[in-house]
């Protein structure tokens, strides 16, 4: 009982901290960058990380197995992965755009898991015979880490696409025009535009660089996850590849990100091309991670929504 209470407390603490972090990010975005506030948000994310870690450890202790046996637990693990992706660059003192992606992602997953939608599966379920293996930890944690990294990377690519194809905001242009009416020569305007384009190309370059980095890490995790899953399947199900829907979708995800990595090798193409591939990959990850569980088909239907049974 004490474990359940502890788990409850930790869930709520982590959720509220992430919401506060999001608020801070919004303030930073809309009003002004207050350095202290920004720094506190980073510290809050570390606190969240420890809360979720505590949550997972608590579950591990009282259920007696690694807490990755159903959808609820894997979602908690997903938000844990988001928070770890968030704080690793923080400790390496690298300022980047990742935090803008990871913090809301952690919020949404955390919010979704703790919401009433999934109350049925909150209880730690027993482990069915097929899951009783050491491969569970390796396979599922690698897959979820891979999903988290790939989601972050592909969201960065989506942001890149938004910046690339967004129409220029006209407000600044007008201000400039009003302020310099006496100075309205052609040169002034062209230089101004080049400055704005310069900023734009800079942020595109950085988004491209970071999404590539995060996706390549996620790709490695996904590769290891799929391969360890195949080895496990050869122990438990009788073959290393069973054409199971979840397997197939994981392989489709892998293929899409392989396409991303290949399109990116061609440096002559603009970054938008590979970003489109990554955005398609974003949708496919969700089909793979959620869609297959939602339908509850195939061999992987362990922690699916219990809608069909009485």
């Amino acid at each position, binding site marked *: 009982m004490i474990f359940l209470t502890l788990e409850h407390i930790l869930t709520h603490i982590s959720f509220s901290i992430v919401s506060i972090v999001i608020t801070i990010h919004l303030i930073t975005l809309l009003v002004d960058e207050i350095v202290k506030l920004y720094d506190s948000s980073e510290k809050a994310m570390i606190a969240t990380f420890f809360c979720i870690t505590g949550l997972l450890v608590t579950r591990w202790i009282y259920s007696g197995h690694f807490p990755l046996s159903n959808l609820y637990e894997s979602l908690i693990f997903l938000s844990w992965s988001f928070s770890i992706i968030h704080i690793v660059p923080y400790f390496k003192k*690298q*300022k980047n755009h990742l935090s803008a992606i990871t913090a809301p992602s952690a919020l949404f997953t955390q919010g979704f898991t703790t919401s009433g939608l999934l109350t049925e599966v909150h209880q730690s379920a*027993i482990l*069915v*015979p*097929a899951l*009783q*293996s050491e*491969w569970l930890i390796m396979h599922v944690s690698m897959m979820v880490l891979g999903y988290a990294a790939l989601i972050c990377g592909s969201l960065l690519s989506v942001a890149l696409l938004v910046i690339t194809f967004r129409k220029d905001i006209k407000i600044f242009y007008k201000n400039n025009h009003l302020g310099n009416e006496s100075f309205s020569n052609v*040169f*002034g305007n062209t*230089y*101004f535009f*080049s*400055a704005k384009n*310069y*900023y734009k190309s*800079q942020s595109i370059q*950085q988004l491209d*660089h970071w999404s590539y*980095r995060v996706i*390549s*890490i996620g*790709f*490695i995790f996904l*590769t*290891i996850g799929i*391969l360890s899953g*195949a*080895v496990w399947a*050869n*122990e*438990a*199900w*009788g*073959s*290393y*590849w069973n*054409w199971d*829907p979840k397997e*197939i*979708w994981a*392989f*489709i995800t892998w*293929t*899409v990100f*392989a*396409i991303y990595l*290949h*399109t990116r*090798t*061609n*440096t002559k193409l603009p970054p938008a091309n590979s970003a489109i591939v990554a955005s398609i990959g974003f949708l496919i990850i969700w089909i793979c991670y959620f869609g297959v569980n939602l339908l509850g088909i195939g061999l992987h239907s362990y922690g699916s929504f219990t809608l*069909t*049974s*009485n």
Partner: protein
Amino acid sequence: MGTLTLNLSTRTLKPYQHHNNLLKSPLSLYDSQIHCLCRKKNLSITIHWKLKATKESAERARNRVGKKIGFSDGAPSLSEDAGNGGVPASPDRNSSGSFKLLKKLSRRVLSVLSNLPLAIGEMATIAALMALGTIIDQGEAPDFYFQKYPEDNPVLGFFTWKWIFALGFDHMFSSPLFLSLLALLAASLMACTYTTQIPLVKVARRWSFVHSAEAISKQEIAETLPRASVQDLGVILMGAGYEVFLKGPSLYAFKGLAGQFAPIGVHLAMLLIMAGGTLSAAGSFRGSVTVPQGLNFIVGDVLGPSGFLSAPTEAFGTEVHINRFSMDYYDSGEVRQFHTDLSLLDLEGNEVMRKTISVNDPLRYGGITIYQTDWSLSTLQILKDDEGPFNLAMAPLKLNGDKKLFGTFLPVGNNDSPSVKGISMLARDLQSIVLYDQEGKFAGIRRPNSKLPIDIDGTKIVIVDAIGSTGLDLKTDPGVPVVYAGFGALMLTTCISFLSHAQARANHDQYFDCEFEFQLICEFVTYRYMGCVAGYVATTKRELLEGLAPGLSPVIWALQDGTTVVVGGKTNRAKAEFPDEMNRLLDQVPEIVESYSSRQSNSSSG
């Protein structure tokens, strides 16, 4: 200007160290300038001027070094009979016309196959087909498709069962379309590996000893170290992670070989996995069997071949005896694990192996793997009015969901009458049996082995035992070792290709860091100077991006010439960083203090 530098260099104690500062790449100079400017928050005009100045000074520095090396090349102390290094000329090939045509054709095919957009298209098509394979139910009877994809109401306006049967989408993963696409992808992988490997082999041929100081000093980065030993240089390069080869007075060293071959390794690993998969599909046997506890079966009777390469082995004559089938339960009554105690008997009836298998713990013997996959209830042993025991066969009852239910029936009274009445017994697992009387009313629950009798309408029943049968899957798969080798190689090579880019990435980050500061400066810069600065950044950026692109690893040559060591190096990767790294390494080379040799070297360059 040239002579001035020369004098300087010969008179200082360590001339090459002095030049190192001048040798610094324009980026690093620019970088340090930006740092200091940022701190001082200087205005735009100074930035512009300074940037230009640094660029010029860097160029001048390069010119000076070039001149200096040119001088030492022409020095009389150099051995003129040094062998000609560089790329050996490729031998001419005389071949017949048809051979040429064939070669031309194969080259054409290769270039088409190794085309990246084609490979990407193949991957995308395979992904789409697999997705379609999960949407369309696989392996159903034709009637199912007639109903689900009717001709009068096509899905999406065109998709009917005709499409499914024409393209084989009812068995997508073995359809000719899907398999031929996989084969095409494999061909593309091979072609790509081949065409990528050829340039690499050429590169590897160039990685040889260069015996002429002139050739070395013509490299992108070249340096002359008087009073130094090539052995010391080799040790230092080895410490810096270079592969060093030393032969007599010549040295060559390179780095990042793993990063060069890792992408090819990834491709080869994929091919290995595909080959293993093909072998599995063509040469394996499969079968499943449900055997009650206590009975035997012969392996060869169960296994059926899957492809033309399937060949039975001696182990197929093995007989399997089920000693015991049991189930573990959680406290809540749910199944924890299934166990089957198996004995393998050879043709003479001797036990060759015994193992208790469970889910996740199969038995392997002579290439055959036996998995625990399923279970069922086969018989119920009962005593009726202390007679028996009787064996009642249990039949599976259909239920929705994956819960199992088995039932049996014990007739009571006149067996010949048309409406037989009796006692029904139902069981979900081996733990407890539910009994119903002749009217179908619930009578009670008994556990097997409890020996507690139950009285139903005057009939005393004791449930002696519930005998389960184990569901086993058997297979032989010659492809598994190949596939596992591919898995290992794939994991290794993906990790290596990621890590080998880390160096280039660190360099890239440095560039981004300086760019962040650059953005800060831009706040102070007026429009007019903006274009100029941005142009400068663009050139350095291009250098850096080239550094990121996969290509040649850094290669270093050196030649001992008397007491002087001539060092040259080139790289395609991390171009901006390589000169710095090389300077740092060359700084570490210890100086040999010998008077007679320094005399000669000084006179030659002075």
